[in-house]
């Protein structure tokens, strides 16, 4: 697996939530009430035993603290940084009910897991070889969590990833003020140190290796495909330079040095989390005027309000109830977006046509779905472009399991980690009991 380049636009960013020093971590850890059946644990999709890992920080058992985290979520280091804790564990801390600042669970989790990485603590060994082999399609959080769990259970694993780097959107998508690409890659390496996970990058499934071939070589398949490329507004001018999908732009910023010296005004189209991220990133990269263009009202946007509040503080502008209806151009160069105002019923209002000037337009109106890749496979059901699975992560085709964004349409890293582990346990059951024969 190749490393990421040193020269990346994202390196200009500082952590939005700085790491705790040991003294800070202890003060915070000692505040935790050590609730029983704690609401924070219930709010965590991977059910990390939060009060326990916090108590272990307070008692100077940081090695054990990190283990408590990894036992439930092997991607606990990145989750500590990228999880929207405000709406998950921290949001449910009982201190909120008391009007006392909630425990900073994410920062404490980062403290323990960073320490584990810095000290090269490892906890897990591969299980005794079962002779079974699993293909994992996609090298993002879902597949990685599944592969690690499968290795602990003794199954051989091969990860097929079309990109040159592993980690999925954790490497190529999450905001650099939460985590940078190199940290995600370090996490992948730490996780792979369990041994026995073969990695094949630059392999597109099914174009390079088809499913029949996978079935021949492996006893089960996990689909951790994630989502596809950005959805592009189907308006004249969409192919012009200066119009770009937001996720693609973010990937560029995270993996390369972008040339943005001619960009003065940026419009980000959309009201979700990718849109807010793109706004904050454009501002952080030093672009002078960054405006979010959203067709609804501010309070209706689907992105997290705590993130938007931060964006506003950083200087974000917004055009609410505004719908793009065309691109404005001059001599093959984009000059802005033609817009119309929208009413509360999302109807365009006549006579409100106007142009918002820009030299860079980022489209954050969603990502396409990849379920079509498995359309030809008997038994696998898809719905709204998502792969349909049961409560164990199994698809309708024996031996095929799935998890992460490709089944939920795009949630968080922590959901992908939870799905991967869940599917691994079900696959183990399948491989050892029911199927997984060489046939």
């Amino acid at each position: 697996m190749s490393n990421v380049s040193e020269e990346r636009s994202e390196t200009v960013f500082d952590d939005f939530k700085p790491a705790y020093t040991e003294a800070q971590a202890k003060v915070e850890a000692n505040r935790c009430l050590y609730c029983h059946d704690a609401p924070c644990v219930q709010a965590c999709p991977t059910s990390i035993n939060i009060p326990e890992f916090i108590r272990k920080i307070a008692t100077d058992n940081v090695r054990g603290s990190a283990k408590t985290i990894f036992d439930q979520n092997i991607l606990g280091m990145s989750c500590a940084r990228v999880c929207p804790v405000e709406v998950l564990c921290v949001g449910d801390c009982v201190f909120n009910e008391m009007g006392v600042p909630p425990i900073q669970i994410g920062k404490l989790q980062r403290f323990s897991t960073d320490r584990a990485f810095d000290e090269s603590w490892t906890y897990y060994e591969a299980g005794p070889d079962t002779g079974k082999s699993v293909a994992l399609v996609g090298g993002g959080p879902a597949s990685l969590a599944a592969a690690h769990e499968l290795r602990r259970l003794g199954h051989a694993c091969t990860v097929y990833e079309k990109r040159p780097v592993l980690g999925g959107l954790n490497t190529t998508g999450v905001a650099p003020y939460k985590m940078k690409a190199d940290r995600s890659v370090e996490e992948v390496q730490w996780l792979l140190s369990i041994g026995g996970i073969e990695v094949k990058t630059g392999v597109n499934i099914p174009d390079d290796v088809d499913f029949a071939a996978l079935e021949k070589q492996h006893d089960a398949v996990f689909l951790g495909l994630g989502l596809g490329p950005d959805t592009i507004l189907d308006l004249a001018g969409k192919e012009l330079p200066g119009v770009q999908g937001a996720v693609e732009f973010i990937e560029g910023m995270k993996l390369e040095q972008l040339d943005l010296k001619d960009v003065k005004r940026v419009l980000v189209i959309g009201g979700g989390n990718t849109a807010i991220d793109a706004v904050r990133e454009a501002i952080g990269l030093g672009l002078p005027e960054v405006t979010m263009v959203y067709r609804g009202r501010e309070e209706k946007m689907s992105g997290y309000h705590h993130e938007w509040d931060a964006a506003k503080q950083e200087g974000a502008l917004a055009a609410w109830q505004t719908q793009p209806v065309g691109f404005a151009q001059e001599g093959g160069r984009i000059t802005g977006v033609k817009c119309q105002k929208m009413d509360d019923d999302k109807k365009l209002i006549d006579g409100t046509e106007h142009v918002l000037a820009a030299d860079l337009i980022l489209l954050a109106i969603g990502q396409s779905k990849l379920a079509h890749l498995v359309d030809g496979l008997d038994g696998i059901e898809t719905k709204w472009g998502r792969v349909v699975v049961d409560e164990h992560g199994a698809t309708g085709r024996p031996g095929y399991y799935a998890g992460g964004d490709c089944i939920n349409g795009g949630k968080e890293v922590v959901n992908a980690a939870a799905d991967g582990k869940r599917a691994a346990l079900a696959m183990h059951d399948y491989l050892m009991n029911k199927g997984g024969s060489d046939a």
Partner: protein
Amino acid sequence: MPDLTSNTAGIVSPNPFWLASAPPANSGGQVMRAFDAGWGGAVWKTLGQPIQNVSSRFGAVRWKGNNGVGFNNIELITDRPLETNFREITEVKKKYPKHAVIVSLMVETKEEWKDIIKRSIDTGADGLELNFGCPHGMCERGMGSAVGQEPKVNQEITSWAKEYSSIPVLVKLTPNVGDIVPHGLAAQAGGADGVSLINTIKSIIGVDIDNFVPEPRVDGKSTNGGYCGAAVRPIALHMCAALARDPRFTVPISGIGGVTNWRDAVEFILLGSSSVQVCTEVMLRGYRIVEDMIEGLESYMREHSFEKLDDMVGKAVPAYSEWGNLDMNYETVAKIDADKCIGCQLCLVACHDGAHQCIHQADDAKVRVPVVDESECVGCNLCQIVCPVPDCISMVEVDNGYSPATWNEHVAGTGKLRPKKGAH
């Protein structure tokens, strides 16, 4: 992986963490859940003639929002029928043959001791603990600390128990004595295979100042109870070490009193405990705390290259000495790390009001980092204790040119002491 197996007077458990004889070890269901959570042993709630309890029974010291830094109770021994207890102990031992189950006992007459010991042994239990410690209620009936406070009685009853018992006998000592050593020696002379200490300390935990009644309040009255929990640890550690370092005392110790986490347990072990028992912290937070205790102890042993528990038992005992043997010429002064200092000046006020007036405001009034006058600093380390920033104030050794000399040597005329500091 270090071996946590603990052996206290022949009572072997997979780790040194036992539930103390108290509410967390009151019934079979509880003890089994505790073993599942990771506890290595349990001393069953004291058996004897079942009693009846009052309500309320507990009180707590609250400190800066923390409830239960110190704890007290006016509870007595088991209130459940003996048959039920014995049946459950038998079940637990059957299900958990590798875990240690110790039966705590407290009865009066020789006949009663004989009978209850036989029935205890029949359960398959690994050992007995004679409760000579309870400082309230039972002692008024001539049992508990009434026994533990009289070395002769202690020795005699211990010898009865030894006569009837085929399994190891521990004697649980009361801290409500001036000097623990004669009591430990009495138990040893009676044949005890080991001692457990401490039981609770006679206490009044507080007063309901609106109703003019001490706590815990039983209608309009209260009574003295037994103090335990984190706050009693220093007293317990001292008693443990006092026995451990006495050359006449040779039997193992099970340490009890204020253990809340792995670090506390390590302290007891280093001062001579072969196992540690926990009551209050489990009452307050549940059996789950043992996970961290096991992990923390393992990490600690690994860091210090202890392969087995025995390698660390008593490791700090030789360094526990009489005051007269301390080196009077060893000199330290406080050093403040200006980079770490947050300018709270807690050290300054502590030194001015509570020590030797040698930490001062810097000449430049804008500078918050205080200055230590090293020529006046007596090295008491009060400032280091009040400093909220780890490693900000350190006590640094000063080379004063004097060779080591103790007070005892000085009195004997063989040691030359450095001049006193800060005594104007």
